[in-house]
Each structure stands twice: as C-alpha cells, then as structure tokens.
C-alpha cells in the first residue's frame, strides 16, 4: 500500500472512530463492491444513483470503497505528497506518481479518488458532502470503477443500453445526438433499461454484455418538452451551467424496467433527422467506434491503449446500425426492437 494511501486510511479511520461507519453493498458488473461511509453523509448522496444494484449477499467484497467528507466528520484530509487539501488544483488532475495507486482530483466535482490496485481498496473523498454537485451524485465513483474494472478487462463506456428479453443495443454518440432521447423513449415504451449514459462493458465470455452502473436518466433543457413526465419527476435535481441537465432517479420511478445487464446485440448510432419517421440502416463497424470512442476515452482519466483495444474489440463483435430518428418519438422503440430482432434472426 502506498504511503499516501496509508495516510488517507488513517484519517478515514479517525473519522469512523469519531462519528461511526455505515456500509452498503452493491453488485456492479458481476463483482461485489462494499462502500464504507464515515458518518454516512457522502454515502447518502451517492447511494440513490446505484440503489438498484444493492446486494445483501456479499461476504467478502471484491472491492472496498471508503467514502467520506471532512465537513460532517470533522476530520480534515491530511496533506499528501502530491495533494494539498488546503489548496487543491483548479483543474482536473491525474496523479500517476505511484502506478499501483493512481489518484484523480476533479476540480469540477471537488472529489479526490484514490485506488489501491494491489489491495482492491479505494478512497472517495470530498470536503463537504453537501456541496457534491448533482451531476457527481448522479454518476459517483466513476474514476475508481473505471480504473478497477479496466484492470479486469471491463470498460466504462459512454453509451446507453436498452432492450428486451435479455438482449439489448448500445446507444452511442456524442452528447446532443439523440442518445438519451432514444434510451428514454424506449424506457417509457416499457423496454428493459440499463442506462442512457454510462455502462460497463464486459466481453470476457465471448459475448458482449452491458452492465448497469447508474439508475438515472438525464434531460438537457431542450428535452424537457419532449419528456414532460420525466421532467416532473426530475424537478429539484438540476444543477449548474457546467451540467445543465435534469436528473431523474429512474431506479426509483421505473424499478421494474431497470435491468442489471443485457447482452449487446448491436451498436446503434442515432442521428436526429428532422423528418417525421424513424428508420435504421446497417453501418460499418468503424462507425460504432467513431461514435463511442472519443467521448469514452476523453472522459476517463488515464484511458489509453488498453481501453481503446477493449472498445475496438467490442465493436467488431456486433453489427452497427444508424438510427435515423424522426420527430415521432413513439416510432423509436419499434425501430430498436426491429434491429434486435434482425440480429437475432441473422445469428
């Protein structure tokens, strides 16, 4: 264990001794994750986004994550050799000084993440849990889960996933291209829902599987009119200019449609056409990589050849389709079902 990690551990233990420790277990991507919350303030903020993955069967967790803040525990983050909590960096900063213990400070979220790769333990700290931005609470532990799963051949992907009867499609593309609209329309039509934003991709057994990470949906202002029901459910969960989205806890509102994992049958790249009708067309697999790779790679601190290789392998294992999404949104779920059906038939 690195010296810095030991120092943070010591502070966390003092926080627990002072204010108590709560735990919550989750099943994420087929692995067990136990979170320990000093005092519970941070834990309470991040649990809602992953509550659909709660799991009470864990005996010996694969990964332990210690989540805490200084404001509620009264225990400050000690200065580390590369991090001064009194003067944190003003930019997103990746610390690679210790290869077995990467760390990342997000100036946008105010969160410091450290992962002890050898001992499968991590810290997720912020100065004040009450100041944790809504967007961070909607997709917490990203960096830790990305690093830890990447070591095991699973990759955090910027994509949505919906489907039916256990089979699904990855919905991918840059923000504003119809990814969330497609995923949320399918959810409202009764389809199984994994995510509209991030999934964990596993292809260890020869098939491509998308695991659920966050049971949330996100609406940008231009989508509010299209999804009045979701917009009402998301009232009060909207935050700043940096992340002007309304967050809906879908795992609470649509618990029956949340799905832990779907087998990925195809990659779908939506394009908003402005025409009335929706149609789909086969596309080269390179198109899937082009749609999925840039925002995935650049959102993951430290992503490199390994993540690029995993993504490339995945898109070569399934066909790709362009979804020319029309203005009549109710046509979209049918088009997605047809894609899944076609791939099943062709298989």
């Amino acid at each position, binding site marked *: 264990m690195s010296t810095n990690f030991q120092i943070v551990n010591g502070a966390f233990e003092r926080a627990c001794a002072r204010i108590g420790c709560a735990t919550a277990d989750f099943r994420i991507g087929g692995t067990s994750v136990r979170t320990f919350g000093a005092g519970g303030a941070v834990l309470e903020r991040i649990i809602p986004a992953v509550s659909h993955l709660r799991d009470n069967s864990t005996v010996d967790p694969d990964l332990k994550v210690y989540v805490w803040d200084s404001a509620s525990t009264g225990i400050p983050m000690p200065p580390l*050799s*590369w991090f001064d909590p009194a003067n944190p*960096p003003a*930019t*997103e*900063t*990746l*610390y*690679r*000084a210790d290869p077995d213990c990467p760390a990342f400070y997000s100036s*946008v979220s105010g969160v410091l993440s450290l992962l002890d790769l050898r001992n499968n333990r991590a810290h997720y700290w912020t100065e004040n849990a009450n100041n944790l931005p809504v967007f961070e609470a909607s997709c917490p532990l990203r960096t830790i889960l990305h690093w830890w799963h990447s070591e095991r051949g699973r990759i955090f992907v910027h994509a949505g996933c919906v489907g039916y009867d256990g089979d699904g499609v990855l919905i991918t593309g*840059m923000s504003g291209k119809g990814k969330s609209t497609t995923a949320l329309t399918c959810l409202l039509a009764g389809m199984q829902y994994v995510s509209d934003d991030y999934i964990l991709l596993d292809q260890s057994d020869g098939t491509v599987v998308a695991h659920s990470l966050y049971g949330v949906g996100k609406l940008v202002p231009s989508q509010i009119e299209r999804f009045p029901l979701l917009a009402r459910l998301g009232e009060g969960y909207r935050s700043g200019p940096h992340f002007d989205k309304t967050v809906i806890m879908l795992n609470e509102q649509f618990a029956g449609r949340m799905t832990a994992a779907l087998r990925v049958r195809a990659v779908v790249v939506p394009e908003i056409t402005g025409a009335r009708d929706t149609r789909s067309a086969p596309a*080269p*697999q*390179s198109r899937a*990589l*082009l749609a999925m*790779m*840039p*925002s995935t*790679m*650049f959102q993951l*601190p430290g*992503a*490199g*050849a390994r993540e*690029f290789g995993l993504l*490339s392998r995945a898109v*070569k294992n399934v066909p790709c389709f362009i979804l020319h999404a029309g203005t009549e949104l109710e046509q979209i779920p049918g088009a997605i079902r047809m894609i899944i059906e076609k791939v099943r038939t062709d298989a």
Partner: protein
Amino acid sequence: MKYRVNAPQVLYEAFDDEMVIINLDSGSYYTLNDTGRVIWEIVSAGGALEQALAALSARFEDISAEQETRIHAFVQGLVDEELIVVDTLSAGQVPINDAPRNDQRRAYIPPALEKYTDMQELLLLDPIHEVDEQGWPVAKADR
C-alpha cells in the same frame, strides 16, 4: 525516411476498408479510407514510401506521377498531424501481405484523412492535467 506511430498518445484500429485513429494529446481523431489505411500500415511500421507505392500498385490500376506526389503529401500530412513521427532508429523492409493479383486491380482512389475536432471543446473546458514523478501537475501540450 522511416516513420513510426507517435505512440503512446496515438492509437489506431484497422477495419476492412477504413482506419480509425485517435490522438489523445490533441483531442483530435481521424479516419483513413482504404487507400490511406494501406499506406499507414506500411509507413507507420517503418516501411519505405516506395513499399507503400508498390502495395498500392498491386491493388490499383495505374497511379500517375501526380498521384504519387499527392501520396507523398498525404504522408507529410500524417506527420503534420503528429500521428506518425520520423524514426531514426529502425530500418528495413516491411513484408507486404496478400497483395492482390494484377487482374484484381481496380481504379485508383486517392488516400483521404478525415479529421474530427469536436472533442477539443470538451478538453478545453475540463482539461486533464497529469502529475509527473516530481509530484506536481504538468499541463499536457495542446490540451
């Protein structure tokens, strides 16, 4: 002149008739058409430009001198985008696999490099800085 891929910041993946390339430092990503892919696979592996021209000649009908000049410019474009760099260390020929027979040759299509810069805005908004061994954040060039 020998070249190599500008690793580790440049990553690429070949598909049947296309190649996808990303430059993690600049935030730009690219596609190459089939002709560009053939040139890339030889030149980026240290093969001489003449080898790439030979491989293209095996695939395509007559390539004019003017088109050869454009191929030189195309390779220089890969250098200008910092996707490949001059390699002063390695030397030697790169094996050219499965060159089609002459009767399979088709009309020449010039190499094309398409550049996408839509991620750069995101990188400028939230640039990730990396800390080196000295323990102090160092901004990566062009990020």
